[in-house]
């Protein structure tokens, strides 16, 4: 790129239309087209959904710890609302609980909190744009979430109060295609599929918008290799979403057509399921599994990459060092995304899939561990010898890295076909994906909330509450999910309402009780987060523009930024990671907007040619 000249005399472009027209309360806070408001809307919605999903999970945990006992409190308070007979969890209801737990957590929490909340809030700020490329589309992508939530809610209530889809979040046919398969799941499963489609539409609108914004709306001087890793991760995530999601949407339409209109895609002929008449046709159940995982494996990276990017940015700022290996970080994310498209079959090793494919998918899956490892080593390299600030953000980031290591390692175990044949559908899998999804992604999000809260609301979150929340969550998390590895190795199956009917699993009950107690602790800890979030809004310490002395463009905007974001359209002079540079006399950071010193690449991050 050619040299960039300081932008003098542009001073009132940034809030170009801030003062021109008044926007009413509804336009400003509810149907807002401002990316910051939409991001915060997404954040609050997903935090609420996190609590809903957590409550569902506690139902599951209760049954596994004290099978067939009436739930204390819940059964009395709700008058048996959530339980079949006398406050008990019936087997069907248990199935529904874990199905909806996973669906809520994946589609209404993790995916929207990353792309929807942080993606929306951070992308324009970090690339120096005044908003997204298409603000209305952006607003729609938020307002498509609510019909989706309503559809998921409908799936709970349409067939009476003990109804919900009961096929797991993966919705495998034949059970999900034959209406009579699960009692109570009749229309519920169809509503669930509608909800899924709506979430998909929302993500789709978000992803094309993000890609356009990142490609075309960067501030002058913000070359591709001067973009913060958060932006790279959001960009790559958007690409994943754009190419993987349509396949799931298509498959979802096919399943809806099969359930409601008599189409035949997935159900083979001659099956007798419950009291349904024998099936007719010649569909192929494995087709769904392929199409589903073609989306859902890339989706697990959609659920991780943005957190990886944000952690990279937070970590560099908290240890006052340039990120170790900026370009390898970018390339490894790209490699993860690319490889992520060719590993989906590792979820189907035991499905009766062609063994030749099993071998192929095993090798590609093991390959994906390489770029993941590159990233882990780079984070460790970043921390190494840094001036570590021992605060909530750092704690959460370090938790992210270490929990991702555990989850990644168990992933490699299961990537080997012979091992997976034993581990598949045991609690080992449950441990694996909670380590990556909760341990990595959610801790990353906790850190990101703490880190960018001052930019959102102009106040700092309480450090003391933050640390308490981290500590309890971290202990609760490991207490809950680490023992699940042991359960899995002992052969404890997932998705069983009562595994103890098999005598060889009776002795696992105490571990399960321990797990449930830890899960309750972890659940309670989240109220601290909510409290901190709400409390700091009123009572937090006032924050300046750049409370963390960080380098990104977002820290040159006011806190909170007004409509249009920057008071001067920012110009970017260097990469985002020049901490503790010898060039920055007196301070230990060099903001991307700092024009004083033209520099080559300190820490290899600044040379922006592409």
């Amino acid at each position: 790129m050619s040299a960039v000249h300081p932008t003098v005399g542009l001073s009132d472009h940034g809030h170009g239309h801030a003062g021109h027209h008044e926007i009413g309360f509804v336009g400003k806070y509810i149907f807002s087209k401002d990316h910051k408001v939409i991001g915060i809307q997404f954040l609050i919605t997903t935090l609420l959904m996190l609590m809903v999903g957590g409550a569902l999970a506690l139902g599951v945990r209760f049954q596994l710890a004290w099978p067939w006992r009436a739930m204390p409190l819940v059964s009395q308070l709700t008058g048996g609302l959530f339980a079949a007979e006398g406050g008990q969890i019936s087997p069907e209801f248990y199935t529904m609980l874990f199905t909806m737990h996973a669906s809520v957590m994946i589609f209404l929490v993790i995916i929207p909190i990353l792309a929807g909340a942080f993606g929306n809030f951070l992308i324009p700020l970090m690339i120096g744009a005044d908003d997204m490329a298409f603000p209305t589309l952006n607003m729609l992508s938020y307002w498509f979430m609510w019909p989706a939530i309503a559809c998921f809610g409908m799936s709970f209530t349409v067939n009476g109060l003990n109804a919900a889809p009961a096929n797991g979040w993966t919705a495998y046919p034949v059970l999900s295609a034959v209406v009579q398969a699960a009692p109570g799941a009749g229309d519920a499963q169809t509503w669930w599929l509608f909800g899924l489609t709506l979430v998909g539409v929302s993500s789709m609108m978000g992803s094309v918008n993000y890609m356009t914004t990142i490609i075309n709306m960067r501030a002058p001087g913000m070359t591709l290799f001067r973009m913060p890793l958060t932006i790279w991760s959001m960009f790559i995530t958007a690409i994943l979403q754009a190419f993987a999601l349509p396949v799931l949407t298509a498959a979802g339409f096919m399943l809806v057509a099969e359930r409601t209109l008599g189409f035949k895609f997935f159900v083979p002929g001659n099956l007798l399921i419950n009291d349904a008449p024998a099936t007719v046709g010649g569909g192929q159940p494995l087709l769904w599994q392929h199409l589903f995982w073609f989306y859902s494996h890339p989706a697990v990276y959609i659920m991780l990459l943005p957190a990886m990017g944000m952690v990279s940015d937070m970590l560099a700022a908290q240890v006052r060092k340039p990120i170790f290996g900026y370009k390898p970080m970018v390339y490894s994310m790209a490699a993860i995304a690319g490889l992520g498209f060719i590993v989906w079959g590792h979820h189907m090793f035991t499905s009766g899939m062609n063994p030749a494919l099993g071998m192929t998918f095993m090798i590609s899956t093991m390959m994906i561990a390489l770029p993941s490892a590159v990233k882990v080593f780079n984070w460790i390299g970043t921390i190494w010898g840094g001036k570590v600030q021992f605060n909530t953000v750092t704690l959460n980031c370090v938790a992210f890295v270490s929990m991702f290591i555990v989850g990644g390692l168990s992933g490699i175990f299961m990537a080997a076909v012979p091992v997976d044949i034993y581990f598949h559908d045991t609690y080992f899998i449950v441990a694996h994906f909670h380590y990556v999804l909760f341990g990595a992604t959610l801790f990353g999000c906790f850190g990101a909330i703490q880190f960018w809260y001052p930019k959102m609301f102009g106040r700092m979150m309480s450090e003391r509450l933050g640390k308490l929340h981290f500590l309890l969550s971290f202990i609760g998390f490991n207490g809950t999910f680490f023992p699940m590895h042991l359960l899995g190795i002992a052969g404890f199956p997932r998705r069983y309402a009562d595994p103890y009917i098999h005598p060889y699993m009776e002795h696992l009950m105490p571990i399960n009780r321990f797990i449930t107690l830890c899960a309750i602790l972890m659940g309670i800890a989240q109220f601290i987060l909510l409290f901190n979030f709400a409390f700091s809004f009123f009572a937090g310490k006032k924050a300046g523009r750049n409370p963390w002395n960080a380098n990104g463009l977002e820290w040159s905007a006011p806190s909170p930024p007004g409509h249009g974001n920057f008071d001067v359209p920012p110009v970017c002079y260097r990469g985002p990671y020049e901490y503790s540079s010898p060039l920055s006399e007196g301070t230990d950071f060099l903001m991307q907007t700092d024009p004083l010193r033209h520099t080559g690449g300190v820490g290899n991050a600044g040379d922006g040619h592409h």
Partner: protein
Amino acid sequence: MSHEEHADHGHLYRFIFGLLCVFTAVSWLADECKEYIPGVWLLPIIVLGVAVMKALCVLLIFMHIKFERAWKYVLLAPTTILAIGLPLALLPDVGVHYYHMDVPQDPISDQAFEDLEPTSDAGHSSH
């Protein structure tokens, strides 16, 4: 924007339209005389080959890809790879089976029709 770069392509467009009509006629003809086309695979190869040619015409000329800058490669390469890769990956599993697939379509499914008798349509088994 990029419009200034476009010269007058009227002639080219007319030519491409003509070409598309000819291609359509070719696949139609291929269908008309399919009895005379030997083998199982020749007809699909002909008509799908023609389809690819037509798609290229539309993509390159009508959709202006020929006149766009290098971004077209970045954008179309991953899509094309995935779009070809997905069916190819499905083929060895769902398309070609390593086990015998021919589930007999009879005895029990006949019951299906019987159970449904006077009220519902035959085969409408999902209700």
